[in-house]
């Protein structure tokens, strides 16, 4: 009898119905939209993450029934992952990162304009540098200002940090030591990551250059780039105060091991150096005597944006979580633990912020820095700078040729991106 029933059904129909059943099973396994659950994707490093987790825990204790999940992703992975997820109508409710991700996210229309979601009074409580507007809309509110490079020095090896390029060379020579006479230096005056053009920006600006004009067109073929590159080459080959080769990890390890007196690194690194037992001092980057300009790093806020797919019914909760994370007491707690600059204006009068030596110098550096452009073209500019910058340090290109090649490549890459 059973056989007869099976015989009456066409195998194709049977196969189709099994497929349909499987689809239903799979779909029933998928997670439905939970309006009491907020997901945050961030690229915070470990010490930042610990503070975030603690703050979220506090929020969840205050609001039983609400669940907040913070998921770490490496910066690039976060960016590409968020693009893919948001275009497919999914993704986290809040996405956290430096402000330069706003450009591509806005062009792709995957983050929400936020100006109508908050009151003007509340927004006015922030340092204007901490809230990122792009093309007439507010797209990011930051909890930390800076993400900027400064001169970090080991107080055991150096009491007074150099203020000018001339002083840097003198100090560097004194602190680059070959103690056993084998022709190799056991200690360097200065280190930094010189594979990434982001770390070249202060030298470029110190000699009067900048990456792009007001319209977002690259301006890399300029004397600032050439002089900046020549200066770095001289530090390495003529004055020999920096290692022959150093990427981020090597520079970081040298400084942590006390084998480098100074390092150019960002505010994200300070807590790590303290943890490694280095007594650090923070000083603003140098003044270039020839131009009279201060080396200006790029300064960018790091903050939260809202996924365009967050539905109206969930918006209230997402905003509440965001407000909690940006609240002055939470920002102050972060600043105290990590020495990062908060964005809540009233906190600048707090005794800790006012009197902390690291934060004071950090503030000077922020004021001297240049805001990082948020336009997507910046990505093409980094990509165009990297090969020639590395070629100059590898001795394959002259700085003049490198500046020309950077400009040509940047223009082409921007055209490719925008085609």
């Amino acid at each position, binding site marked *: 009898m059973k056989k007869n029933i*099976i*015989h009456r059904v066409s*195998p194709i129909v*049977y*196969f189709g119905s*099994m*497929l349909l*059943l*499987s*689809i239903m*099973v*799979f779909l029933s396994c998928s997670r439905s939209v939970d309006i009491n659950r907020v997901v945050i994707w961030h690229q915070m490093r470990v010490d930042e993450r610990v503070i975030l987790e603690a703050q979220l825990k506090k929020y969840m204790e205050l609001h039983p029934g609400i669940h907040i999940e913070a998921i770490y992703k490496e910066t*690039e992975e976060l*960016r*590409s992952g968020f*693009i893919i997820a948001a*275009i497919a109508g999914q993704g986290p409710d809040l996405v956290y990162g430096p402000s330069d991700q706003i450009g*591509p996210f806005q*062009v*792709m*229309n995957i983050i929400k304009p936020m100006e109508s979601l908050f009151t003007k009074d509340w927004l006015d409580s922030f340092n204007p540098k901490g809230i990122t507007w792009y093309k007439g809309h507010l797209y990011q509110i930051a909890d930390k200002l800076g993400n900027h490079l400064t001169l970090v020095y080991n107080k055991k090896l150096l009491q007074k940090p150099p203020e000018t390029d001339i002083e840097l060379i003198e100090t560097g020579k004194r602190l680059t030591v070959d103690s056993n006479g084998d022709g*190799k230096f056991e200690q360097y005056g200065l280190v930094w990551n010189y*594979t990434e053009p982001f770390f070249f920006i202060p030298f470029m600006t110190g000699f009067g250059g900048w990456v792009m004009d007001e319209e977002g067109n690259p301006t890399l073929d300029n004397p600032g780039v050439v002089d900046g590159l020549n200066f770095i080459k001289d530090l390495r080959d003529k004055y020999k105060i920096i*290692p*022959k*080769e150093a*990427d981020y*990890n*090597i520079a970081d*390890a*040298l400084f942590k091991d006390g084998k480098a007196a100074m390092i150019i690194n960002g505010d994200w690194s300070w807590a790590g150096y303290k943890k490694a037992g280095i007594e650090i001092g923070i000083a603003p980057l140098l003044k270039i005597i020839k131009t009279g300009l201060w080396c200006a790093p790029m300064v960018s806020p790091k903050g939260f944006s809202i996924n365009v797919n967050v539905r109206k019914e969930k918006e209230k909760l997402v905003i509440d979580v965001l407000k909690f994370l940006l609240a002055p007491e939470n920002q102050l707690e972060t600043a105290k633990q990590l020495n990062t600059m908060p964005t809540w204006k009233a906190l600048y009068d707090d005794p800790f912020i006012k009197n902390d030596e690291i934060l004071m110098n950090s503030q000077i550096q922020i004021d001297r820095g240049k805001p990082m452009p948020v336009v*997507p073209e910046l*990505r*093409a500019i980094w*990509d165009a700078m*990297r*090969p*020639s910058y*590395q*070629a100059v*340090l*590898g001795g*394959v290109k002259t700085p003049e040729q490198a500046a020309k090649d950077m400009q040509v*490549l940047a223009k082409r*890459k921007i055209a*490719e*991106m*925008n*085609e």
Partner: protein
Amino acid sequence: MNRLYKNIFIFTFVAPAFLVLIGVVFYPFIYNVVISFSNMNLRHIQDWQMVGPVQYVKVFTEPTEPNFYVIFLKTIIWTFVNVFFHVVLGVFLALLLNQKIKGKGIYRTLLILPWAIPQYIVALTWRGMFNYEYGSINIVLTRYLHLPAVEWLKNPTEAFLACILTNIWLGFPFMMVVALGALQSIPHELYEAADIDGASWYHKLKNITIPLIKPVMIPAITLGIVWTFNSLNIVWLVSNGGEPSDNTHILVSFVYKAAFNLYRYGYAAALSIVIFFILLIFSLSFMKKTKATEAAY
């Protein structure tokens, strides 16, 4: 038709797996083909349109630095040097491990170790080891072998060599395990008969061992070639995304950069399809030439 009825239970069990295959293989593949004919990029990610084979033309003619042909050549060198050493080292070590030696288990575990460590850790550790001043490789070269230090990560050729060395270290355990399995399945009588005939070690290797491990090794080599050709992690992490000056790219790392660094999704999809066909044609002709699917006995 009757056979179809008989196989009705097979259909039942295959249906969910088939659905997963549609979801994770067929659909993404077809979608990739579609966007390879589109203008999808940063500016046209939501409103992309079909533009014909424009992206394919770009793949072959765009004056990128380095261009497609140079990267393709590097990919071939990368693949063949890697797989050659994976197989030679793997089979050699498998032959050693197949002997009656003391502490075989310990050696086997140690030799499989490179495979067990996450690739990310391996790549970054090797990158540190290749550092000019502080890397252990240069320290060994200069201090113990009295050779000049090599600028591993700064010069294009040396940086590419550094990636290859890392991947060789990472890849030989797989071939070793496969070859060891194959060696253990060879009937011992064959060697005994060869011994009676007075065959030398070399003759036994040439006439018994190699022909009998071939049916296992050929599919493994084919897989190894496809994996190595498409191995993004090591090149990307050891060379820090193609450094110096984008000179250490292989095709997949170049695709990755186009798609995720420069948001050129249409172009990256077209290049992916080109890679797919290169590998498809290679695999089919390699399998046919080596008669890998034919029985050994």
